[in-house]
């Protein structure tokens, strides 16, 4: 329960921090931290418009996407405090819940039969396909290192062993941070601010969603962000500290991560589209380093 609460708290300020940091680096004052949520509430009050060339698939996509992300959130533990759902191999279900959400959004993008959205769907499917091994290599190495196979057990035991856990924790956290950027369509893979349909990945797929549907898609994106950054934070927060210190640490790490994304997006350009595959494969390569480190520590090689 605690982790779910923390995820919701972090989701409130996470998108606002990114926008604020970017605005400050651009020399502007920027909107308030809660502005992204005001925008979402504005969307929720509106009705959705459906294209006459779309079918029921388009209409059910947004609710399914939203639900899958919410259910996935129930699997995320915060250190030793147990998540609502926890069982052996739960991270596989977590990954494929998000996969299911992505799948329905891709279907909805194809359903409206627009030239742009088909391209976006194609790109999203391609990148997530490349991204999937990194997540499983990562979770596999953590499972091997700790000897457990559920989120809760892995993170509860990650810090007991030795200071090798620090190495594992830092690499895992780095990989997870990169996965977050790809999963949530941020720089350098995608540009969430662009108005150019031809260069979009995620944004172009939701071009035809409007009003309430768009609102819940945006909520789901914000929560998805925090899901991954919570996982990432779990890898590095030491367990020896008091619970309230760790809670503060988690929230601070979330804010720092959001600020880091804002900083990254201010001072670099996005990748050339063809370079994205290479970039994602490099994340996989770092994940492979992780599994080697884990194997060495465990005397398996």
């Amino acid at each position: 329960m605690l982790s779910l609460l923390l995820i919701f708290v972090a989701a409130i300020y996470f998108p606002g921090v990114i926008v604020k940091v970017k605005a400050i680096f651009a020399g502007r004052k920027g909107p308030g931290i809660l502005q992204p949520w005001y925008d979402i509430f504005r969307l929720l009050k509106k009705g959705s418009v459906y294209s006459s060339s779309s079918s029921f698939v388009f209409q059910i996509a947004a609710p399914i996407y939203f639900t899958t992300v919410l259910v996935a959130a129930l699997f995320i533990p915060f250190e030793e405090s147990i998540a609502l759902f926890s069982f052996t191999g739960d991270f596989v279900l977590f990954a494929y819940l998000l996969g299911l959400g992505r799948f329905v959004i891709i279907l909805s993008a194809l359903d409206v039969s627009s030239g742009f959205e088909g391209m976006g769907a194609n790109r999203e499917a391609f990148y997530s396909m490349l991204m999937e091994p990194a997540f499983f290599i990562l979770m596999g190495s953590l499972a091997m290192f700790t000897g457990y196979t559920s989120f809760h057990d892995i993170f509860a035991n990650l810090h007991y062993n030795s200071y090798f856990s620090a190495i594992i924790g830092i690499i895992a956290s780095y990989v997870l941070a990169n996965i977050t950027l790809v999963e949530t369509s941020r720089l350098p893979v995608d540009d969430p601010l662009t108005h150019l349909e031809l260069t979009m990945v995620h944004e172009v797929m939701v071009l035809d969603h409007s009003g309430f549907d768009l609102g819940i898609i945006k909520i789901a994106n914000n929560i998805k962000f925090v899901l991954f950054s919570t996982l990432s934070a779990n890898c590095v927060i030491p367990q020896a500290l008091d619970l309230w210190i760790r809670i503060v640490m988690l929230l601070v790490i979330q804010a720092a991560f959001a600020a880091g994304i804002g900083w990254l997006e201010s001072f670099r350009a996005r990748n050339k589209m063809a370079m994205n595959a290479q970039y994602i494969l490099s994340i996989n390569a770092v994940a492979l380093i992780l599994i080697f480190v884990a194997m060495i520590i465990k005397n398996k090689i």
Partner: protein
Amino acid sequence: METITNTLSYISIRNQESISLSKIPILTYGKFSTEVIQLMKEPQVHCVNYFAYPDGEILKFICCLADDKASDIKVFSHELPKREKMQLTSITREVYAFHIYEREITENFGVEFIYSPWPKPVRYAFNRADRSKVVNDYPFYKIQSEELHEVGVGPIHAGVIEPGHFRFLCNGETVLHLEIQLGWQHRGIEDLFLKKSALIQRTVLSESIAGDTAVGHAATFAGLIESLAGISIQDRLNIERTIGLELERIAMHIGDLSNMCIGLAYQLGASVFGALRTPTINYSQLWCGNRFGKGLIRIGGTHYPLNVSLVEALEKYLNNFERRFITMAEKMFSLSSVLMRLENIGTVTKTQMSLIGAVGMSARMTGIERDVRKSHPTGAYQKLPYAPVFDISTGDVWARAALRRKEIVASIDYIRELISMLKTNNETPAKPLFEDNIKLSSNLLSVSLIEGWRGEICHCAITNDQGKIQHYKIKDPSVHNWMALALSLRDLEISDFPINNKSYNLSYCGHDL
């Protein structure tokens, strides 16, 4: 008669010089096309305008070829009696750059150019010959393939830009061919020039041909009218107009750099360049009350002379701007993530650009040395020679960005020299001339070329027996350069289209008129 045409197939004039219509030799079409094709083979020659105009029962054709080495404009002419079915053999077959002129003549007067490789409508002008052709049935280049797919963008776009339709033929993410269909923005400007006879109306019209080149088009128009009316203007006015032109260049180039950074999602560049554009256009506002320089250029004089306090403000602005611009440009052009998106993307070759008759920046970025300020200087450019940036030749997005960077620096230096010239000038600023003081001479042709920020702008006018303008022809640099964008996209990823489009920043309304 035959002997005369043999010895004198064209007449050579200077930029902004008027010539009596009777002095232009009229050739047979066969001789005309041979001569033109022959001359167009020279690398220093390009066509600045080729148009037809009706004169009674005859359709007269005027072709102006600019020679960059001889600094002149060679005027050719031929005629065709108006008939139901008019046919000529296409020159485009031999000289690709002629496609746009021939298509325009076909559209406006129904002259068919046989063997033309690309006989497509240009802009669906209001006064087109064949009203059955409408903008919605443009004959696109088609594919008969199961594997390839088409992506259509526009004419309504996501950003606040002008209307234009882009049709991509793609193999997956790779573009095989891009066809650009324009004409959505047609306002009938050339016709308006004839209908609105008051001088002030025409001047304001010229400022509205392309809103981002208000000074460029107005200066071209002013040069043309002054030439037709035989008005010689003060050195002081020439200097001020040139400062206006160069300021417009700086403002547009820096705005384009900012836009390109937005396209790359490079926020720092976008906001710093965007912030630097503001003092530039604000200076225009301080000077003439309009941020785009509208109202600055009037015939024969100016309402807004650059007085001592304005010159001071200009120097202050330049110093401040230069320091900040150079710092930011160095940062941008050394950042690897930016360079990765600029280098070797959207490359076009020098040969391609000279074949399509590209002008201005689009020509210079491949290494073609084409700049009206140097080859056909007028006004202050004549008194104070300008050294164009000719040392970029890679032809990719980087070249277009780097050319802007260098041209901004060159313009700043040039404005400083102009200011010191202005300081030694003691003339009392002249007020603009009005209708009553201007009398255009009769039966003249005049050609005016000015290097706007995008490239050479060409205005031509022909006066009739009463000294009234009988035909007005405008050529914006975008007319040729749109084809450069289409060529850039060949074998490129479709996601690189926006950055290429921004790197050219061509005018829709300048093309559509």
